């Protein structure tokens, strides 16, 4: 049918018309007995072209998240959003009008879907998030405790310290050594009180390396921190490592103080 020989000038015949076209063509021949193909219409009259009116920017919801998305009754979740190009913005469930970016704490009693509506001269956009309220009742407070006693989770979250790293490195620096030494004491205490509690050692990286390389680097950082804790007597089978690479940053500014905060090993409660 067609040549693929570059510029060579070969006659290539008209494709055999499809049955539909053939039938149509035949019917036209029967009716008009004139032309094989219907003649095209005359060119449309020339109209002066007016430049199109500039379209207003369409509102865009860049992000709308609930963190954490699952809570227990009585706990709160933070809605965070960012919108561009909108003049009217509001969130359902009684929150009402909002600014183009912001955050709001919510404590729904039951699982609730929040819808963010943005409208402007260029159109509308909307997005929803659901805060799931888990139905399990919170565990009863410990009975025999005299003062307020912190749960293992609270202890870890309040007293655990991050270990920080140099760029592209997983060596334990002297400041990280101090932090992890305190963490080891804390973990030994938590694990002795709470035989079912486990801990995740998370490895994180700053935004500058590639995501692929940072996945491996975060893994290395988490493992280095875990190995250090185990050396200080923390049972290895209670620790699990997870690399988040650069997918879960603490902060997103492009400067060294933020990058340093993100180059870390962090302890979080496991299952």
């Amino acid at each position: 049918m067609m040549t693929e020989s570059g510029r060579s000038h070969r006659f290539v015949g008209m494709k055999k018309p499809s049955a539909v076209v053939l039938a149509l063509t035949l019917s036209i021949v029967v009716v008009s007995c004139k032309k094989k193909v219907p003649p095209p219409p005359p060119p449309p009259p020339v109209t002066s072209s007016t430049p199109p009116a500039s379209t207003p920017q369409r509102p865009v919801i860049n992000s709308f998240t609930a963190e954490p998305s699952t809570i227990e009754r009585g706990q709160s979740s933070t809605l965070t959003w960012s919108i561009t190009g909108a003049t009217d913005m509001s969130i359902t469930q009684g929150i009402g009008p909002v600014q183009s970016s912001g955050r709001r704490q919510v404590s729904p009693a039951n699982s609730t879907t929040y819808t963010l509506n943005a409208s402007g001269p260029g159109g509308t956009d909307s997005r929803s998030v659901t805060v799931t309220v888990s139905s399990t009742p919170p565990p009863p407070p410990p009975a025999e405790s005299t003062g307020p006693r912190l749960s293992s989770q609270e202890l870890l979250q309040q007293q655990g310290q991050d270990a920080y790293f140099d760029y592209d490195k997983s060596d334990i620096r002297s400041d990280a050594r101090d932090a992890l030494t305190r963490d080891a004491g804390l973990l030994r205490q938590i694990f002795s009180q709470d035989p079912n509690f486990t801990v995740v050692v998370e490895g994180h990286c700053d935004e500058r390396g590639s995501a692929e390389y940072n996945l491996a680097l975060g893994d290395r950082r988490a493992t280095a921190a875990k190995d250090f804790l185990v050396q200080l007597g923390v049972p290895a089978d209670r620790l699990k490592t997870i690399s988040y690479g650069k997918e879960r940053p603490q902060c997103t500014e492009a400067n060294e103080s933020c990058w340093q905060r993100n180059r870390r090993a962090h302890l979080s409660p496991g299952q």
Partner: protein
Amino acid sequence: MKRLILLASIFLGAAAIHAQINGVINKRGEKPAIAVPDFRGAADAQSFMAVFNSTLWNELDNSGQLKMIAKTFYPTRVPQQPSDFRAPVGGTSQGPWMTDWSSPPVSANYLAFGYTAAQNNQIVLYGWLYDVAQSNPSSAQAIGKVYLGSLDEAGARKVAQEFAADILKYFGATSLIGTRIYFVSDRTGHKEIWSMNYDGSDQKQFTSYRTITSFPVVSADGTKIAFTSYPLLPSSRAAAEKLYAKNAEPRENLGTPQIYVHSLETGRKLVYYNQQASLNAASDFLPDSRHLLIYSTAGGGYSQIYETDLDGGNLRRITHSSALEVEAKANPKTGTDVVFVSGRGGLPQIYRMNIDGTDVSRLTNGEGEAVNPSWSPDGQHIAFAWTRGFEPGNYNIFVMDVANRDFVQLTHGAGRNENPVWAPDGVHLVFSSTRGGRTEIYTMLANGTGVQQLTTQGNNEKPVWSKPTQ
């Protein structure tokens, strides 16, 4: 003096690969010049001609294979079918003729013309391509073909794309019609795999794992996709036990990055047994589409390169170093050359090796950080991201001739430019860039020209370009 010679040779090297890349783009040295006047439609077809004409023009223009002659130069008499041509008599014009198009100011080598009509509730395109240097219409005809589509804008777009594909095929170029770009988007609030046409149309969500899902790679036969995701940590011990009971994977892997393989034909997850390891990440399919390159901590310690079967079986370790090694990509022609990223010399650089791990050599010269290698379909070039000449994190796209390591820089500091991947035509690259603020996906020709933005919603990254499913 020595430095001057070195500089001169670097310059010559860059000039050589520039010429080479442009040679790939303009396979025949000089691009054919083509005139594509607006087609008109008979009766009901006319309302779809704006879509038709812009689609035809853009498909040909975006191919990078043709010199498009501006419509302002065209003669007012435009032929709509071969019978419109009238040979001049004694130097006096009798109607449209090839010389109207071959002589200045048009100076075209080729003319695409034709028209559409609405017949039987279909749009019918009669399309011709003429070599206007020829002396009579019958010898000038390179293409003459009828195309059918639905009588709507989609149908008009379809017949325009098919006609453009035939024109590109005539010039020895590969059409990108039917190819899909798979990528990662956070527009739902979670990073998920999405896909779209090569022009950014028809964006569809592929995964719904609601965790972090990224790093897609597609098999050469277009039937499978592999990516890396975080199997969710169960919310309670009971939920965990339930999950362990039905999950074939080691329970230690839950919550950590693991490899997933899905069918692109059904969308379904296929069986892939991950090694017990804190990190298992998909890196590439081998050209046979039956094996995977992965990077994993299965051997303990640093992430290293491994090969596995499609189901994760027959794990074979390829690299043995005390450094982070990721992103192994197999040469699509040989299947035996592998490029990969390693920190064995300090900051990450791109290395090549044989697939058995022997004969390792560094390709990039040690400057900055070099990551994200991707082979050209002919297996001669790699595209990659490099911070050479910029601060850490400020990547630009480069192309290197693997045989002599000459390289050329395609982007120059407009945001972070990462993850360049070749199109099946060997002429286009898709990549991500932060040049507009958020991370979005762009395409360009492999010489750095013709940049087009494909995504606008949320952040979009990690593109891969798949062939049409066979």
